[in-house]
């Protein structure tokens, strides 16, 4: 891989240990993908924030590098949700041991220089750059959304590689950064008997099916090109949960391998994910709720009360916006609990509830409820959840 003279100097340590480490990461990953060079990026989004995911080893690493002299993020950097609501964790079943470690992780990231919100839907909280801009986003659902909906250029990055890009302002010029690699290699032809797929459950099931059956840029045939944001979000999240695809398109490309998505496939995926008929608590916000979703939720609650415990996950930025518009009060009045800046899946809150099952509209959420917490999930669209659980 070609390095500029100043990149060479950075690798050899002339600009200090933090940049040496960061460039070593980019160089190593560039060699793995046989990339020719590095390119500048406008935005890094880093995963690996919840203490539940990175643990003591991740915390140790972040603390050490944030203490090195001169370590600072060079480009606009956002980070994934953490494991708790920073301002009110103790009332939500989070232990002080967990909270202490979580705050240390947050402190390390803040020292390095991050935007003030912990979110897996960064495109909701911050201004999206023009189409075609190269960014470096970890968090598979956000990276797939960036490529497929926002027309940005990113690979599915890891916690370490996105951190290296935040420190250097550069990423490896490979895979989905290169125009010719962004064409679909395989198609999923939607041939289910219902006229149109709609809602986050349908799109989550489709995304999960695609993730299981494809590895590369995938084209969906037979879905609308324009969709509500929550359907795209559900599709991207489920696609990123299984498999390695970093992008999808919608179209009718001829001459590529085509896989049918039939009623039978729909049912088999749905039954795999939705392994409970009902749940003891309702979880909204995997990925985190958008402002549109909070508006819909507040409207559909219609002044009534929820019959079950209900948790609503969103970023603090979106929460503040929703608060000024009155959505927050309407949702809290119905009996729901907001959890800001946290991930619905990688939080100790779920385990602390001592429940066996949840109700969710998220395929990704249902997947991790099982694998992380051993909790079953009933997969139900938001409107239906409300129609069945309001007094």
């Amino acid at each position: 891989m070609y390095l500029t003279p100043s990149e060479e100097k950075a690798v050899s340590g002339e600009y200090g240990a933090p940049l040496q480490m960061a460039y070593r990461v980019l160089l190593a990953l560039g060699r793995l993908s046989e990339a020719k060079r590095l390119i500048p990026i406008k935005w890094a989004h880093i995963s690996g924030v919840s203490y539940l995911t990175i643990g003591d080893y991740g915390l140790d690493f972040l603390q050490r590098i944030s203490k090195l002299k001169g370590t600072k993020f060079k480009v606009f950097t956002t980070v994934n949700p953490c494991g708790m609501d920073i301002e009110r964790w103790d009332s939500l079943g989070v232990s002080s041991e967990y909270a202490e470690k979580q705050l240390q992780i947050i402190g390390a990231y803040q020292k390095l220089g991050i935007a003030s919100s912990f979110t897996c839907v960064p495109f909701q909280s911050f201004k999206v750059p023009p189409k075609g801009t190269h960014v470096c986003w970890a968090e598979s659902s956000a990276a797939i959304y960036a490529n497929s909906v926002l027309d940005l250029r990113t690979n599915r990055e890891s916690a370490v590689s996105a951190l290296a890009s935040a420190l250097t302002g550069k990423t490896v010029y490979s895979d989905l950064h290169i125009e010719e690699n962004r064409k679909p290699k395989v198609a999923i032809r939607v041939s289910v008997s219902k006229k149109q797929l709609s809602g986050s459950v349908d799109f989550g099931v489709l995304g999960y099916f695609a993730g299981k059956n494809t590895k590369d840029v995938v084209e969906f045939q037979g879905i609308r090109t324009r969709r509500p944001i929550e359907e795209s979000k559900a599709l991207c999240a489920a696609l990123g949960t299984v498999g390695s695809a970093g992008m999808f398109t919608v179209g009718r490309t001829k001459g590529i391998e085509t896989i049918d998505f039939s009623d039978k496939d729909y049912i088999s995926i749905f039954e795999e994910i939705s392994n409970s008929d009902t749940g003891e608590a309702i979880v909204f916000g995997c990925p985190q709720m958008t402002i549109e979703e909070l508006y819909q939720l507040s409207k559909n609650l219609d002044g009534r009360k929820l019959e079950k415990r209900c948790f609503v996950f969103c970023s603090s930025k979106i929460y503040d916006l929703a608060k000024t518009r009155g959505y927050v009060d309407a949702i809290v009045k119905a009996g729901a609990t907001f959890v800001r800046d946290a991930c619905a899946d990688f939080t100790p809150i779920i385990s602390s509830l001592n429940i066996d099952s949840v109700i969710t509209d998220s395929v990704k959420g249902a997947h991790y409820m099982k694998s992380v917490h051993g909790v079953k999930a009933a997969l139900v669209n938001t409107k239906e959840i409300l129609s069945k659980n309001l007094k």
Partner: protein
Amino acid sequence: MNQGYNILGNKSKIKQIRLRPIVETSKDIRGQILFSSQPIAFLQGVDPERGIITQNKHDLFQSPVAGKILVFPNAVGSSVGAYVIYRLRMNRVAPKAMVNQRADIITASGCAIGGIPLFDMPADSIDVLRNVVMGRIEAKESLLTFGLDLANDDRGE
């Protein structure tokens, strides 16, 4: 060029392989080879405090990795494994270098942040290093020299 060849004539058992550098080093490396044909799950499979492989049923179970040239196909499991590799280095119980069949993102990013030299050999089988005791990696050319005779060789680091 990627085949092991004899450099010291037929009587010698010393061979050389050119490796692909992933995380490079400026110093030559000489050390005992610790070989496994099994992938390593660093998170939960390696104790970074003691530098010992703790993965059940692994053929290197209980083996210390400190100061060795650790040869294995690739890492598997959680991406948090990269931080385990870093911690091995911080605790001064890391391998001197690693050699993969084909390096993966976990091993590559872990070695990069830990500053542990990493090489792979996509064109040759790591199996040629099974039963090899000592190896020397020449930094500039990423050339791995190995063989029984090297045990009594004191060149390199």
